[in-house]
């Protein structure tokens, strides 16, 4: 859903709340009543553009009903949904049978903690991770460590332009330039095995602690 629809839902909920509060106020002032109407009571009638005609003897209940209906609508649709993100890119020099891993994770979200010269530090703020920064890693088995891109939304730029491999998200789309994978990794060093032929040592880790 777009932000405009969220705004409409919010306004709907506020309208509903106002109607319920207004109905309470009118009841308090005696302008409307919840008592059952007498035989000579005149019904309240509202006509809206000759299309919608409301006629009731218990106006307060109608106000409550409409107000609660608006409130219910607001709460019913007031669910948070993260903004969508579409990522497009092309990886060069990959054979059809080669498997390339592309993984996306949120953050990083650096949270500054100051110890103010003491040995003990405290962090007593709310942690509110945003969905404005992402890390995209592209790699293949047998190559050097993955290529990492930082994806950022425009409004959290800062000095990010100075950092290499930063891609700005335009709307909900992050479009990457053609990607060349890293060089093949050097072969692993020979195994240093001090377990296989070694007798299992007796340990008492707890004694040291």
């Amino acid at each position: 859903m777009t932000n405009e629809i969220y705004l409409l839902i919010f306004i709907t909920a506020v309208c509903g709340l106002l109607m319920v509060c207004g109905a309470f106020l009118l009841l308090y002032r005696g302008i409307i009543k919840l008592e059952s109407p007498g035989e000579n009571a005149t019904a309240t009638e509202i006509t809206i553009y000759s299309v919608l005609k409301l006629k009731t003897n218990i106006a307060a209940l109608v106000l409550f009903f409409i107000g609660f209906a608006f409130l219910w609508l607001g709460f019913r649709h007031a669910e948070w949904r993260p903004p969508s993100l579409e990522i497009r890119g092309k990886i060069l020099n990959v054979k059809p049978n080669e498997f390339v891993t592309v993984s996306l994770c949120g953050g990083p979200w650096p949270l500054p903690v100051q110890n103010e010269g003491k040995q003990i530090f405290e962090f007593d703020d709310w942690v509110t991770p945003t969905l404005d920064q992402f890390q995209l890693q592209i790699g293949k088995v047998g190559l050097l460590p993955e290529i990492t891109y930082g994806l950022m939304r425009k409004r959290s730029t800062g000095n990010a332009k100075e950092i290499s491999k930063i891609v700005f998200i335009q709307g909900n789309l992050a479009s990457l330039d053609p990607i060349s994978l890293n060089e093949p990794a050097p072969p692993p060093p020979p195994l240093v095995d001090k377990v296989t032929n070694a007798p299992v040592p007796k340990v008492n880790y707890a004694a040291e602690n």
Partner: protein
Amino acid sequence: MRQKTESEHRAFVAVLAAATLLFQVLSATIAQAQVTSVTGIILNNAGMPVPGVRVVLINPPVNFTASSVTNMEGIYLLTMVPFYVQAPYVLQVYWGSQLVYQIYLTRLGEQEPIRLHY
């Protein structure tokens, strides 16, 4: 007489609540005290730090596994390692998916530097 019974009852509930709270605090303290950490550095033949290799700590009898990746200084850190175990921990180093080093740990905490032969 009835009032005295009620006050005794309230005192009993208060003491029970305080004892429960004390038990919880003690349990949490003891639970925290039963873990430690394992840290060290990984070097190559030239004595340079090796970043980006995976270090895994296992103890199969208690089904324990923890892993970490060395940072730019070649340092790894494994936390929340229980030390009340009977069998020794095995520390393994992986180069990608390849096992390149493994050793029994005779003690926890800070380890001797690990040298990979390359």
